[in-house]
């Protein structure tokens, strides 16, 4: 269980290799990578990611601990970037390793759902003709709520 909040990009292949190394009990690894998407089809210049240093690491650690309690996980990894990212760049990743695929999938979805609503990150999109803070989505709250119903 390792968390990084960083400006630098990351290498998914390296992260998964590191996660699974020397553990013969891992049968399944699920990863999620979030990318800067240009919803406007060409006017996005960059995405600015702001976070709350200190609280971010603490919130992510709590989310990961909750996932580790709930599912059979050998290991997990969360990386979230901040700063200015260009269209197509990697924003963040989660990876979960488990003996079983169901656990790996569910834990990865859980990490993503809670990260979306509980980790203090904010996105601002810079377009050719202006800038806007990305609105939070009701669908994200609904996604999180499924784990408690």
């Amino acid at each position, binding site marked *: 269980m390792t968390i990084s909040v960083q400006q630098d990009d990351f290498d998914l292949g390296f992260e998964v290799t590191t996660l699974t190394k020397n553990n013969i009990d891992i049968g399944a690894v699920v990863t999620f990578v979030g990318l800067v998407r240009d919803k406007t089809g060409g006017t996005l210049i960059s995405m600015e990611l702001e976070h709350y240093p200190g609280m971010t690491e*603490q919130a992510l650690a709590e989310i990961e601990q909750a996932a580790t309690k709930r599912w059979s996980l050998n290991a997990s990894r969360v990386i979230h970037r901040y700063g200015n990212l260009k269209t197509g760049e990697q924003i963040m990743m989660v990876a979960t390793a488990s003996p079983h695929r169901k656990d790996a999938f569910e834990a990865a979805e859980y990490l993503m759902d809670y990260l979306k609503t509980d980790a203090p990150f904010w996105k601002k999109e810079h377009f050719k003709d202006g800038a806007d803070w990305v609105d939070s989505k009701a669908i994200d709250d609904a996604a999180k709520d499924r784990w408690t119903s």
Partner: protein
Amino acid sequence: MQLDVLYFAWVRERIGVAKEQVSTTAVSVADLVKELSAREERYAVAFQDMSVVRVAVDQILVPLDAPIGGAKEVAFFPPMTGG
């Protein structure tokens, strides 16, 4: 009581600073919001709709009516949009 008050994203932009020291006698977060909003227009604008503002006391998410107690740090920000 001396508090560090932090603002993020558009809350920060509306208030115009990322962090400030505030002297207050507020018991709850809601009291603090009222107090700041009465001080200057920029706070009143940032806090006009608290349904879109989230609060953390000492880096833990809390409801608006949470007590401040002996906290060192209160933060205001919009709903998160990471991931």
